[in-house]
C-alpha cells in the first residue's frame, strides 16, 4: 500500500487536463504526413496573405500590352495572364479568396452540421426521423447543381460563396455527429446531468457536442478541403467570384483555355496550389483523427 499509493499519486497527473492534449499533440506530430500538411498549409497562408506585402502587383487593372508574357519576362517571375496581370501576384490574391471561402465555408458547414446532428441524435424519435429525412433529401440533390443555380441568381461575392457552400455542405457532418450523439446521449454522465435537472440544451451543447469534438474537428478539415474543391468547380464553370477578384479554380479554368498555346504558367501554378492545399488539409485531418483516437494514444 505504501508503495502503491505514491505510484497512484505519480500517475495522477497523466489524467489531468494537460495530459490528453499532450498525448494528442504527440500523436499528431508522430504522423509525418500530418506535419507535412501543416507546414504546407502554413507556407501557403504566408504566401497568400504575407506575400502581397512583399511582391507588389496591380491585380485590379489589366495591362493588355503585357498579356501572356512567359515566366521571367519583365520581372514577372511566373509570367502574366491573358490580360497582362502578374501570375505570381494573382496566385496570392486568388489563394486568399480560395482559402477564405474554403476555411469559412468548411467551418460554417461543420457548425451547422454539428448542431443539426447533435440535436437530431440526442432527441431521437420522430424529431430525429424528420431531421434526418431533411438531410437525406439534401444529400440527394447534387451540391454542384444547387451552387450553380444559386450562383446564377445571386451575385457571387465572397460572403455569398461562403454562405452557399456552407449551406450545401453541412449534410455529411450532420450524419456523423448524429451517429455520435445517438451513442453519447445514453452515457452515464448525460443521464446523471438530466437526473440532476439539467435541460436538453445543456445536454447537447455541454456534453454531447464537446464529446463528439474529435469527429467534428477531423471532419472540419475534410470540409475545408471539399469546400476549396467546390469553389474550384464553380469557378471552373465560370460562376466564381466576380473580377477583378479571382480564386485558384478560376485561374485554372482560364488557364485551361490556353492549353494548346503552351501557356503552362497559367495552368500548373494554380493547379498545384489547389492540389497542395487540399492534400494538406486531408493530411492534417488524418493526423487529427489519429490524435483523437484514444486507442492509439496508449502506444
Amino acid at each position, binding site marked *: 500500500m505504501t508503495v502503491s499509493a505514491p505510484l497512484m499519486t505519480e500517475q495522477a497527473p497523466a489524467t489531468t487536463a494537460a495530459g490528453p492534449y499532450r498525448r494528442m499533440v504527440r500523436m499528431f506530430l508522430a504522423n509525418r504526413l500530418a506535419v507535412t500538411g501543416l507546414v504546407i498549409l502554413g507556407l501557403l497562408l504566408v504566401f497568400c496573405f504575407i506575400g502581397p506585402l512583399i511582391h507588389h502587383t496591380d491585380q485590379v487593372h489589366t495591362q*493588355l500590352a503585357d498579356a501572356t508574357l512567359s515566366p521571367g519576362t519583365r520581372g514577372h517571375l511566373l509570367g502574366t495572364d*491573358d*490580360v497582362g496581370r502578374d501570375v505570381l501576384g494573382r496566385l496570392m490574391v486568388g489563394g486568399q479568396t480560395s482559402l477564405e471561402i474554403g476555411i469559412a465555408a468548411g467551418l460554417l458547414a461543420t457548425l451547422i452540421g454539428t448542431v443539426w446532428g447533435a440535436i437530431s441524435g440526442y432527441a431521437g424519435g420522430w424529431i430525429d426521423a424528420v431531421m434526418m429525412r431533411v438531410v437525406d433529401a439534401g444529400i440527394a440533390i447534387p451540391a454542384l447543381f444547387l451552387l450553380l443555380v444559386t450562383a446564377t441568381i445571386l451575385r457571387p461575392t465572397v460572403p455569398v460563396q461562403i454562405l452557399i457552400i456552407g449551406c450545401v455542405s453541412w449534410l455529411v457532418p450532420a450524419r456523423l455527429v448524429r451517429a455520435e450523439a445517438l451513442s453519447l446521449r445514453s452515457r452515464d454522465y448525460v443521464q446523471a446531468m438530466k437526473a440532476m435537472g439539467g435541460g436538453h440544451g445543456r445536454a447537447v451543447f455541454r456534453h454531447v457536442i464537446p464529446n463528439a469534438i474529435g469527429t467534428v474537428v477531423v471532419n472540419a478539415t475534410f470540409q475545408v478541403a471539399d469546400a476549396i474543391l467546390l469553389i474550384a468547380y464553380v469557378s471552373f464553370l*465560370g460562376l466564381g467570384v466576380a473580377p477583378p477578384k479571382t480564386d485558384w479554380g478560376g485561374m485554372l479554368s482560364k488557364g485551361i483555355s490556353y492549353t494548346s498555346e503552351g501557356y503552362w504558367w497559367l495552368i500548373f501554378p494554380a493547379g498545384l496550389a489547389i492540389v497542395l492545399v487540399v492534400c494538406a488539409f486531408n493530411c492534417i485531418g488524418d493526423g487529427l483523427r489519429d490524435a483523437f483516437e484514444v486507442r492509439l494514444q496508449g502506444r
Partner: protein
Amino acid sequence: MRRRSPSFPATARTPLAVLGVAATLLVAGCSSGSGQGGSSATGGTPQQGGSVTFALPPNATPNWIFPLGTPGHLAGYNSAIRQNVFLPLYAYNGSSGTVAMDEKAGAAKAPVYSNGGKTVTITLKDGLTWANGQKVTTRDVEFWFNLAKANKAQWGNYSKGDLPDNVAKFTTVNDTTFKLDLTKAYNPEWFTANQLTYVTPMPQSAWDVEDASGKVGDYDRTTDGAKKVFKYLIGEAGKLSEYASNPLWKVADGPFTVKEFTTTGQVTLAKNAKYTGDDAAHLDAVTFKPFTSAQAEFNVLRSGGVDYGYLPALAVSQQKTIENSGYQVKPWNGWAITYIPYNFNNPEMGAVFKQLYIRQAVQMSIDQATISRVIWHDQAAPGYGPVPQQPVSKYLSQDQKNNPYPYDVNKAKALLTSHGWTIAGNIASCTKPGTGADQCGAGIKAGTQLKFSLLTESGSTETDNTMQELQSSLSKIGIALSIKSEPLNSVLDHSPECKPNQSTCSWQLSFFGTQGSWYFPAYPSGEQIFATDGGTNLGSYSDPTADKLVKESTSSSDPQAMQQYSSYLAKQLPVIWMPNPAYQVSAIRNNLRGVVQDPLAFMQPQRWYLAK
C-alpha cells in the same frame, strides 16, 4: 417580326428568341468576312462532281423546308438550306466585297420602282422551270402571296405592317411580270432587301391542293382555300423523314434537291439535274452535318471528317495544327454590330446614362483596337456605330468609320470632372448637381456615385477578358463596374425592355455579343433596336431625331438617309459600341474552292467545287 438575320442560328440568336423576338431574329449571322477575308481561294481546275460535308453550328438541327416558316422553324440554317432548293425572289450576299443583291441566286430580275416608290414591277427570269417541267410563273408568286396573306398569323416572319400587309394589291401583268402596289412609299432598297427577300415562288401547279388525295386547283385564291392548302402543306412539312421521298418537295427550281433529311438534323442536298437556271451546282452532293457541341465538331474536324467546319473560340490557337491538316482557317464575319445597351429606365442609373457626356466618357475609355487584337486575336473588329463596318458599305458614314470617340482615358476623365464629378478613391461622385454646363445633369443627385453593374454572358474567355478590360479602363476614370456572368439566355431574360417602376428594370448594362449582338438583313436599318418603339430596343433609348432618321432610312429613297442615321447614332451613343466578333472561325479544306462566307450567313454551295 422582322427577320434579323438571314442566317445560321448561333447562340446569339437564341437569346432573341427568349426575348420573344421572332425566332428569325435569332438566326445567327454567320458571316464573313469582309469581302476580303471571307472567301476561300478560287482557282485550280474545277472538278465536276464530288461531295462535301459542311458542319452545322452546335445543336443546329434543320427542321423545315417549306418556304413559309412557322414559329419554331425559322432558324437561319433552314432558310440557308431551303434557298438552294426553292429559289427566293431575291437573294443578297457579300461576295462582291459589300452586301449586295446576288442576282444569280434569285428567281427574278432587278425590281423596278415607280410611282414615287409606291409601285414595284418585278419580272421573273426567263427559262426557269420546276423539276416537273412547268415554268416558274407569276402564278407561283401569287400563290406565295395568297398563302402568306391568309395565314400571316402562323407565318413566323410576319410583323404587323410589314409583308404582306404593306402590299395593297398584287397584279399579274403576264406569266413573267407582276406589279405590287404598296400601301405607302418605301425606300426601294429597304423594301427589296428586307421585304422581297422573304418572297419565294412556290410550285402552284403541284402544291395547290387541300389534301393528299385532292386535285390541284386554285384553292389559294379564296381565304378559306388558302388556309386549307397551308394547313396541308405545313402538315407535310412536319414530316422530316419524308422530305427525301415526298413528291411535293421534289418539285424544286433551285440548283439542289433534297436527298436526305433526318430527324436528327443531317441533310444531304443532291445536284438538281433538272435545274434550268444559270447557277448550276458543281458538286454532286453537299451534306450538312449536325453536332451537339463545338468540341464534338472540332474533334471530327481534326480527324478530317468534315470539309467545311469551324474552330471553337478556345481552339483558335490550334489554327496551325488545322492548317497542317489540309485546311485553310478563315474568320466568317457577320453583317452585325456588337454593343452593350444602357438601361435608360434603370431607377438608379437611368438619369446618369441619359447624359451624353457620360456616354462619351465611357466610350472613350474603350480601347477597341487593342481589345480586338490582344483579346480576340484579331477575330473581332472595332465597331463605332449602328451600321456594320465589315464589309464596308455605302450605308457607313464617315463619322462612324473614323470613330468619333477615340480611346483617350484622360479626355474621358476630364469630361467627368468638368461636369461636376469629383473622383476620390477611384470612384466619381457628383458634387455639383444641377443642369448647368458644368453640372452633373438632370435627375442626378448630389453624392451619386458612378457605380455600374453589368450582366454579361458566360462561357467565353474572350468575353470575360473584354469585360475585365472594360472594368479596368472605367476604373481609371472613376467608374466602378461590377460584373456578373450568366448563361446567354439568362442575360437576355434578365435585361428586358422595362419601365422604371418594374422590378425587371434593375439591370443597368447587358452584354450578349460573344458572336455579335445584332445581325441585320441586307439593309441595316435600326428600326428594331434604336427606334423608340423598336421591338428589341432593350435599353428604352428614345431620341426624336434618331426616330426621324430611322424612319427616313426605311421610307426615303435618299441615299444619304442611312449615312445620316449612321453618323447621328455613332455620335449619340445609344449603346456602348464594342468590337464585333466573327461569327465563327471556319476551317475549309484546301481543295474546296468557290466558297464565299456570306456576311448574311447564307450559303451558295452550288458555286463550291473541288479543285483537282
